[in-house]
């Protein structure tokens, strides 16, 4: 067991090794070899992570290379300090868990001090690591089949391995700078993987959008980090002197005022929270996540559902003492943003046709649940929901991938594929074109159903327990607004998921005459070529439904977790109940039958409403949505996502373009000024030259020349003959006489 603590550093190192092996060795030339290498290393990391979780669950810890039991050494310096200063008493139930493992190295000198980097494992981290490695391994496995047709499958594995390494490293970071670095590398991987099919304009545009929109949150988070670093003198997690959760320090930043009359704690917390808004795609920076669905489906499952987008929630959870330090102002904002996003995204999901986009908006909404939970003090509930959501949402995405994979093999879409790959893929993702897939894809159907029930919140599936705990926290804390908004969002969740589930798996298959996606940027290709193929295909296959074994295996594993993950924190006082709360050292929330009843009622109500509302809808793919026929205006508004993208394009997009022009213009003016100064200098030079040349150059020259000429002429006058001189004297007298008579006398 102690071995797992000592080997913890291998957990992020193994996927990183996988990335390096696949990128730089000849392995990259073989798709299966690179895939299996990545999977094998992930499996190893999973074993280590689960072992680490077990070790921490036993209360084992590593102190100066010695394995000790935390239960016995309780009351030792750190934990004791936290308790004495009353973090727990003052701010409800929360106490920052004691670390099981801290390993640090000196990273960079900073004046008289040094910056240390290292790994930090406590029980929540161990749980996150286990979750990430398990889902990531499943998704690696799934990609083996799903991405097999892609020529760049090796590179795909290298990217998702790098991503996994970054996510694991972020979880284990012992300071917020390392946390941020890994966080940004995840952003890089997200960029690379959204734009994985980079021949498509939609893909690379979505990739740039994702990177830039999250970067807006990230730079504000960076400001939060430098703010915190300036105040605390370090970014190291922990409660000791000089570390960021030191009780005396928290008290100080909670009391002192900084900018705009906010306390330092509020300012730091809100800036950090901006990172969450970007990464976890909360309103108003949520716009990148639905577009991110341009990436291959395993990417959507891994990065944009289970792990990276949850990192924002993890950030708030990790820095929770700072959010608590200001007495609740920052948390109120957190709660508001989370609850609003939960509701807002759920309404949009109701009116989407794209199977992946529905899930994407659902992810937004569920992340909103987690963020809201943190905002109202439900720290355990938020992390619990993070864990369960990761399993069932990854499952749902992979299930949708399996569906899309099968849809792409149907004749109508294959035909389209030859003309325009992108349109074919979009058409394959349209739930209007599905229907009745239950019979054709049984494995997918049953696993998807498990994920669906978990998301809708039906007892005893995983989502029920964690969502119920969030609602119970809101209820217990008296946060009525948050509570009611979340209840409505939960209803909508059950409703839109039932709509999707029903349209995909029940009714008749409508894919023979699909609603074809109109691609405004369709590549111009000869189409006759495709028509030839089309007859051939139809004769050969009919519709050939198939489910890939590696893909199915991944679905089954995740489905098992979607069913059972809720049992890790059952709200009953039975053996094994409140397991996560106890593991994380937090006070357990007692079971509230009233809230559980409301929660279940809402879920069942949503399901019933969805089932009846869409009964008999979409006999053909081209039919309108029942909601669209009853409330066309509302449906359009929701379908067009409240036109947020258009609004941003028209406001910020245009502003940036105008500013670029403005600065280019300023540069031109500056250039003119510089050139003007140059011209003036040149002119002065010319003028100087002319003055020099005429006055100082020609003048003396002329003077000299004149003197010489005068001399010459004068010399000629010196003839030496007396009669000449007499003549000169006479002439002189005449001139003087004339001068005297006519000039002077007058």
């Amino acid at each position, binding site marked *: 067991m102690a071995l797992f603590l000592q080997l913890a550093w291998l957990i992020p190192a193994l996927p990183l090794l996988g990335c390096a092996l696949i990128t730089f060795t000849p392995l990259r030339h073989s798709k299966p070899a690179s895939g299996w290498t990545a999977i094998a290393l992930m499996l190893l990391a999973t074993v280590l992570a689960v072992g680490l979780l077990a070790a921490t669950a036993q209360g084992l810890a590593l102190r100066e290379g010695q394995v000790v039991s935390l239960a016995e050494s309780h009351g030792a310096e750190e934990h004791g300090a936290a308790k004495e200063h009353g973090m727990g008493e003052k701010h409800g139930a929360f106490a920052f868990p004691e670390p099981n493992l801290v390993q640090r190295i*000196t*990273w*960079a*000198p*900073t*004046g*008289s*001090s040094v910056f240390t980097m290292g790994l930090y494992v406590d029980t929540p981290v161990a749980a996150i690591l286990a979750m990430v490695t398990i889902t990531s391994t499943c998704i690696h496995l799934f990609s083996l089949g799903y991405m097999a047709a892609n020529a760049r499958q090796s590179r795909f594995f290298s990217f998702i391995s790098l991503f996994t390494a970054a996510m694991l490293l972020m979880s284990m970071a012992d300071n917020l*700078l390392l946390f*941020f*670095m*890994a*966080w*940004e*590398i995840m952003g*890089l991987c997200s*960029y690379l993987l959204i*734009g994985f099919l*980079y*021949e*498509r*304009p939609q893909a*690379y545009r979505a990739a*740039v959008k994702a*990177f*830039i929109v999250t*970067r*807006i949150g990230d*730079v*504000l988070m*960076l*400001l939060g*980090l*430098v*703010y915190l*670093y*300036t105040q605390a*003198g370090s970014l190291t997690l922990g409660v000791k002197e000089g570390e960021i959760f030191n009780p005396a320090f928290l008290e100080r930043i909670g009391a002192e005022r900084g*900018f705009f009359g906010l306390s330092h704690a509020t300012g730091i917390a809100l800036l950090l929270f901006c990172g969450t808004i970007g990464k976890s795609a909360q309103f108003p920076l949520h716009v990148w996540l639905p577009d991110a669905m341009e990436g291959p489906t395993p990417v959507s499952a891994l990065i944009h559902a289970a792990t990276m987008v949850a990192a924002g929630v993890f950030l708030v959870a990790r820095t929770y003492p700072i959010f608590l330090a200001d007495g609740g102002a920052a948390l109120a904002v957190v709660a508001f943003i989370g609850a609003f996003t939960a509701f807002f995204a759920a309404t949009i999901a109701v009116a989407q046709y794209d199977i992946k986009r529905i899930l994407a908006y659902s992810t937004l909404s569920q992340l909103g649940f987690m963020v809201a939970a943190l905002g109202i003090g439900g720290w355990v509930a938020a992390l619990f929901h993070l864990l369960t959501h990761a399993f069932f949402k990854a499952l749902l995405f992979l299930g949708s991938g399996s569906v899309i994979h099968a849809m792409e093999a149907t004749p109508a879409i294959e035909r389209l594929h030859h003309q325009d790959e992108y349109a074919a893929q979009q058409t394959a993702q349209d739930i209007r074109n599905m229907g009745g897939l239950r019979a054709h894809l049984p494995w997918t159907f049953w696993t998807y159903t498990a994920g669906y029930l978990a998301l809708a919140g039906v007892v005893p599936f995983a989502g029920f327990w964690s969502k119920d705990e969030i609602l119970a926290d809101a209820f217990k804390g008296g946060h009525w607004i948050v509570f009611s908004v979340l209840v409505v969002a939960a209803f909508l969740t059950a409703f839109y998921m039932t709509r999707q589930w029903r349209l995909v798996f029940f009714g008749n298959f409508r894919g023979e005459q699909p609603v074809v996606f109109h691609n405004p940027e369709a*590549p111009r290709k000869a189409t006759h070529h495709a028509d030839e193929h089309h007859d051939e295909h139809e004769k050969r296959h009919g519709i050939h439904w198939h489910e890939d074994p590696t893909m199915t295996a991944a679905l089954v594993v995740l489905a098992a977790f979607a069913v059972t993950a809720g049992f890790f924190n059952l709200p009953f006082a039975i053996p094994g109940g409140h397991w996560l709360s106890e593991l994380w050292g937090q006070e357990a929330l007692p079971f509230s039958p009233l809230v559980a009843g409301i929660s279940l009622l809402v879920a069942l109500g949503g399901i019933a409403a969805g089932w009846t509302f869409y009964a008999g809808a979409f006999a053909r793919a081209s039919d309108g949505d029942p909601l669209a026929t009853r409330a066309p205006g509302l449906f359009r508004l929701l379908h067009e996502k409240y036109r947020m993208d258009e609004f941003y394009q028209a406001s910020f997009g245009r502003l*940036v373009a105008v*500013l*670029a*022009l*403005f*600065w*280019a213009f*300023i*540069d031109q003016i*500056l*250039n003119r000024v*510089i050139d003007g100064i*140059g011209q003036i200098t040149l002119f002065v030079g010319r003028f100087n030259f002319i003055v020099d040349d005429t006055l100082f150059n020609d003048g003396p020259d002329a003077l000299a020349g004149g003197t010489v000429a005068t001399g010459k002429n004068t010399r000629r006058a010196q003839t030496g003959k007396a009669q000449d001189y007499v003549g000169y004297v006479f002439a002189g007298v005449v001139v003087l006489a004339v001068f005297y008579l006519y000039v002077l006398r007058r």
Partner: protein
Amino acid sequence: MDLPAYLIPSPDGVPWLTLLVLSPLVGILLVGLSAALRLDDRVVRLGATAWTGVPLAIALVVWSRFDPTASAGGQGAVQLVEKIPWIQAIRVDYFLGVDGLSLPLVLLTTVIAPVAMLASWRLSDRVKAHYALLLLLQTAMLGFFVALDFFFFFIFWEFSLVPAYFLIQLWGRENRRYAAFKFFVYTMAGSIGMLLLFQVIYLSVRQAGFPTFDLIALGRLGLGLPVEGVTGTFRDILFAYMEQLGVANALGRYPLLYTSIAFWAIFIAFAIKLAVWPFHTWLPDAYAEAPVAGSILLSAVMSKMGAYGMLRIMLPFVPDASQYFAPVMGALALVGIVAGAFGALANVGGDLKRLIAYTSINHMGYVMLGIAAAAALPGGAAQDSRAIALNGVMVQLVAHGLSTAALFYLAGALHARTDTWSLNDFGGLRVIAPTFAGVMGTAMFANLGLPGLAGFVGEFFIFRGAWATLPFFTALATIGLIVTALALLLMFQRLFLGPLNERWKGLTDLRPAEFWTMMPLLSLLLLIGVYPGPLMSLANTTATQLVAVFQRVLS
């Protein structure tokens, strides 16, 4: 000559710095010899490139002899010092030495020079002259970084313009005459103030009985540290001389006024070189019109001369005026950051080299911000914050040098294949040139400050240091982080993503030689990004001691 404790001569008695500065000159002689022997251009290329290994090796020796933690007399120790009287009449010494501020830049110069040589590999026109000029430029830059007497400092400073001018003028693009002329005259004109200032400085220290052009001694006077043979601070000495001249009676008896005039004379000279807004307009022209090797040396090393000058002269000589005008510097830095970022964005549909040039303006803005923050009020801000800002500046200088050199090199490689610089002409190259895209992508991400690569370390520590003294400028400077990222990503997109432009169907991917030219740069970027400790500890001691003066309110 008896040296004070803060000047440490070479431990083994070998004049390493002289060898360092002279080694490229020997290379020029060899190029000349090859011309006399009528050797083939290929031999010259190979020989000149191989010869750049000599300064690199000497620089590594210098590094190994350098003790980054040594400090004495209230400053980081200047090491491997060589000090010989040179012109007795005006007390000029031949004075070379390195400290934490110059050594990283010396190393950067010697690393970048081979890359510049390799970037000129395809040149076929007047090859020998080209390589001789590159070596000459390297000498001038190395000399600038190690010279500690103003006489030599200024000679190297001005002299570096000459080879750079001819490189642009003779091997540049269409608009090269204009660009070369502007670059040369602008920098030259900017340093007139500094030249005049040093005449005045010399006269005033002579008045105080301590005639010298010694930058270290003068810096110590400015910082208020004891110097043997003279009492009083730089400010007092300057003011006493002004009084004696009677200038103080005419202009006013404010000591700060005269240090302020000195400040502006120094600041403008270096700000032009660093391309601080609004003195930056020569830069896009010069970088864009220069041949690739010229762009690399100009952007990667020459612009750093400006920052180095500020750290070596401006902050120590006139700390009071630096502190007083820090908000102005911060504001100019901020405008430069924003203007550079948007300028890059405005070039997304235009010239690849101009775009990279504008990102340089943006990055040098961060450098300026860091320097301003190290000096700014309030005096109570932690000394560590100021030191962190300067450490960040040093990392940023090195990181930007490495990443921009890589970007310009790759832009040149792309141009060699396609004969166009316009970003509108590309598209989809990643399909046929995946390695090229990968390498350029790495350089680009290093440039835009992705964590794990060197650029981020510099930016993070600059922001961290600047937050303590100039929080609002720091907050607004983040706009630059977003917009530069956008511009570079759009650049990458226009080059590599989307459907392949049929024109470049037969384009070759990065050749092994090109790949191995880039590998050292990218490895260094990664190394510094993952573990910046060794680089930062070079500067840390010197920077920490330097900023101690700003702990007080000086004006």
